[in-house]
């Protein structure tokens, strides 16, 4: 079943949602569906409204204004047309043109669309008609839906007119009714300061914030819901996914995808949910579509890479992670997974490059330096020793950091005599602190590195004797390595007992969840 077919099925099952919205969602492209619906019934005011509000909510204001005008021709007495047209005009910067439309809406509604009155007064004030704005705001102060906002606006108007005391009264009244309108505290501070109450002004500033006065505006709320047709469903879908309800998440994200099939965020999130639900081929198809249609969208490449990794295809995963990084070099997860994939593929220069970049992005994560050093060791061990030294400088008391340094320096012929001598000194100090088999191994390698083969042999045997719990593979590896360094031969890879560092494991579905 294709994604489009899935979408149709999902929406078909969800029939019965709000009028218009559900109808629009039954088509793969909501905008096209709305246009088609209007073309089929050009005199249907409801269809005009749906398309107008959709366009308005998506900031296609010129188109929305034309449609609102058409709606007003169909329903000359309906206040919603001039009101929403005025809002769109104001949002497109045409304040002067908005004013008569607000006026008309307010008049047609018999004052019932109080928000139109409030917006009209605001527009009049900005346009310089303070007297008209003031009259209207005084009229609206007792309105239960917009009264508080009107008092706040009136306060601002009075303040601008230099009437500090009257402004203060209005602002205090508005803030008492709606303390969350904390922006108004700035104006209250100015009013108090103008009235000579500097302490009161400072007190108001302490309470000031970014909250705006709220007012009832049902028509605009209805219009705005059209912009939520995908972002709303996407956020709901993500919430459902986080709570573990994959079924609901998938359904909601599918709706978001239907509403906006071009949104890369929707596509990535839907793919993630499909992947979590085990529908890997659907997820792959969606991500392939995304990276073909929007080839610079880094998360698309990254998530496609993850699917390759889950399918145990490290080479393809690495390619996709690297494409993601090409478009967004700050994707830490992509760097990390690319480094691990490269290490598994024994592409050591790439692994070193990606671990280096990951470490630069998250310099606080010291563990990355361990992996970086291991990858670097495979390319040029002297660089790895420098990286290990960097780690030791950060964590001078950490036996693990010191062990890394000792083992890399001791088994790297190019590290230089000074580094080898440092390694020996460090191994002796560590052994004094804790005489464990690991410390004996450190000491063995460090002694061999400076040519003390007899001492090295003794430490090596002591370590082997104590390492009874070591897995057989590791014992063999240790014996093999010992046979090299005890004869002064260079190692073929850094001696790290933690195999996970040498061969990072792949992601699993459990990791993704």
């Amino acid at each position, binding site marked *: 079943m294709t994604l489009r077919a899935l979408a149709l099925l999902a929406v078909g099952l969800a029939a019965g949602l709000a009028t218009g919205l559900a109808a629009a969602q039954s088509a793969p492209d909501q905008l096209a569906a709305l246009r088609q619906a209007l073309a089929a019934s050009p005199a249907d005011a409801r269809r005009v409204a749906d398309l107008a509000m959709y366009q308005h909510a998506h*900031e296609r204001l010129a188109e929305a204004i034309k449609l609102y005008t058409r709606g007003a021709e169909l329903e000359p007495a309906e206040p919603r047309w001039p009101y929403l047209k005025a809002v769109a005009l104001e949002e497109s910067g045409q304040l002067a043109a908005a004013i008569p439309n607000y006026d008309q809406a307010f008049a047609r509604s018999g004052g019932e669309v109080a928000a139109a009155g409030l917006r009209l007064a605001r527009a009049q004030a900005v346009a310089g008609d*303070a007297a008209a704005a003031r009259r209207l705001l005084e009229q609206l102060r007792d309105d239960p839906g917009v009264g508080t906002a009107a008092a706040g606006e009136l306060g*601002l108007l009075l303040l*601008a007119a230099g009437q500090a005391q009257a402004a203060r009264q209005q602002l205090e009244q508005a803030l008492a009714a709606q303390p969350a309108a904390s922006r108004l505290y*700035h*104006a209250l*501070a*100015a009013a108090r300061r103008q009235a000579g109450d500097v302490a009161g002004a400072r007190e108001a500033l302490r309470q*000031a914030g970014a909250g705006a006065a709220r007012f009832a505006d049902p028509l605009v709320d209805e219009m705005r819901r059209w912009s939520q047709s995908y972002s709303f469903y996407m956020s709901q879908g993500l919430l459902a996914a986080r709570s573990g309800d994959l079924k609901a998440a998938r359904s909601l994200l599918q709706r978001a995808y239907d509403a906006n099939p071009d949104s890369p965020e929707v596509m990535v999130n839907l793919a993630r949910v499909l992947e979590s639900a085990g529908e890997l081929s659907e997820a792959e198809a969606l991500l392939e579509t995304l990276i073909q249609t929007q080839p610079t969208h880094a998360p698309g490449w990254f998530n496609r890479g993850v699917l390759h990794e889950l399918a145990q295809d490290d080479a393809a995963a690495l390619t996709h992670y690297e494409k993601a990084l090409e478009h967004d070099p700050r994707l830490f997860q992509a760097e990390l997974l690319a480094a691990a994939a490269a290490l598994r593929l024994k592409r050591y220069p790439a692994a070193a490059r990606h671990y280096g970049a990951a470490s630069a992005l998250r310099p606080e994560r010291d563990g990355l330096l361990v992996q970086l050093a291991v990858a670097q060791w495979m390319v040029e061990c002297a660089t790895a020793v420098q990286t290990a030294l960097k780690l030791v400088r950060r964590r001078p008391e950490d036996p693990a950091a010191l062990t890394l340094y000792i083992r890399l320096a001791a088994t790297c012929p190019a590290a230089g005599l000074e580094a080898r001598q440092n390694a020996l000194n460090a191994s002796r100090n560590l052994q004094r602190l804790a005489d464990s088999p690991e410390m004996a191994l450190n000491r063995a390698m460090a002694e061999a590195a400076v040519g003390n083969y007899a001492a090295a042999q003794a430490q090596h045997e002591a370590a082997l004797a104590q390492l009874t719990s070591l897995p057989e593979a590791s014992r063999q590896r240790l014996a093999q390595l010992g046979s090299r360094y005890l004869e002064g031969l260079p190692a073929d890879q850094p001696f790290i007992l933690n195999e996970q560092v040498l061969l990072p494991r792949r992601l699993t579905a459990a990791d993704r969840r």
Partner: protein
Amino acid sequence: MFETLPILFSAALAAAPLTDRTAEAGIRFSHFNGMIGKHHFPEMMGAGVGLLDYDRDGDLDLYLVQGALLDPAHQLEDVLIKPEGPLLDRLYRNEGNLKFVDVTDEAKIAGTGYGMGVSVADLNNDGWPDLYLSNFGPNQLWLNQGDGTFTDATSEWGAGDDRWTVTAVAFDYDRDGWQDLYLVNYVDYAIKGAKVCRSHSDLPDYCSPQSYKPSSDRLLRNQAGAKFQQVTGRAGMSAAGPGLGAVAGDFNGDGWPDLYVANDGAANFLWLNQRDGRFIDDALLAGVAVNMAGMAEASMGVDAGDFDGDGDLDLFMTHLDRQTNTLYENDGQGWFLDKTLGTVLGSTSFAYTGFGTGWFDLDNDGWLDLISANGAVVDIAEQKAAGVVLPLRQRNQLWRNRGDGRYEDLSGTAGEPFRRARVSRGAAFGDVDNDGDVDVVLTNNAGPAELLINESSNKNSWIGLVPRTAGGAVALGTQVRLQVDGRTLVRRSRTDGSYVSAHDPRILIGLGSHRGPVAAELRWPDGRTQRIEGLAINQYHELTPPAP
């Protein structure tokens, strides 16, 4: 305040008071922004223009700031709008009779960075104006050698800053006789790994400054003309903000220069000079951090001037569309009130995003008029759909001060320069043709510079005052007060304000219908005052400070 003042001068303006004379003046500069379609933030922010008399021959020369390739991974063939000349800033010498000649090469000045702004001041007190170039990347200081050439003194002076500096303000904050510099830095932006933002319709678009970490500004103290000392922390000015414009002036009337910084989408700073090398940000209580409704606006350009003729410095700044430009009236003590609502400036600027701006007396009637150089910062859908490569074009605006606290939008009748839509950014003001009125130079992003000559052709009187330092440079920060026909006219010598641009430092004051000599009270940058009687009108006067 306005209610008690008679409107003394009402001049009828010519239908097209500012006419574009760029081509006949020989100025063939076009800005290059290096855009390659990735919506890199800096590409739509530059660049500026400076007016300065670099050769001290008595007329204003022109310095134009150029862009460069932004992304080192790309070549010139990748850019969407090709350059029309060398990728270097240009210096044009004013030959008189409105003829300019490109003298960049002979001046040995190499403004090679990704240019934003230019600031002008005599930093070593040798009498010759020097240049500070603000860049996206390393800034440059060019010292005027007095022989027609400049030398790069950035390292020697410790004047560099590798961050994104938009503009720099020269002011003598410690009144020691040497111009200090305040660098206005914007946000922490890197080309590599730059964020990709999207419009509401989910198309790639420019990000807002809120997408990035704001940068802190920098105060450089001039050490007797030898080098700069970085004193930002010591001065208490380490606060970070996405600054775009700044202007110095004595806002609280204590005789010491303060500094106002316009931040983009964050609370503005009003740094009040504590007279001991420190500053305190008083913007919140002073009422200029946010607008009256408590909103931090996207401030771009800024200017300080006495728009209402009450003797103190008011503030005006340009903003994003749907925010309105904002005018703050000073009560004389450094406390301000947002007076935008009553001025008509709000409603008429509502549809535009303003950058360069300045208070200037277009018609010499004694009231300060306004210009806003406009251009959007996010793609305009209709222009994008029409295939415009940089779809940010808007008309510029011109307002006349009616003298009653209100402005009149003249843009619709002010001729071609205000009819065409471009992506305007910088605006510098000065008497380019030395005829006693203020001309304007505008810059356009990925477009030409525009020399707009004032042809208001009214009979109003004027006076030009040129306060000089002992070294002979114009003494920036000098404040002049005239009493004319019952009105107080306060102006100052400045090159700062606007956006990324530097103005004519001379003080030109319109006197309306006044015809006799005038007396001027000067407050020099070091705080000394001087009264000069009997100054003839309709000419420039060279003024020197009183003996200590």
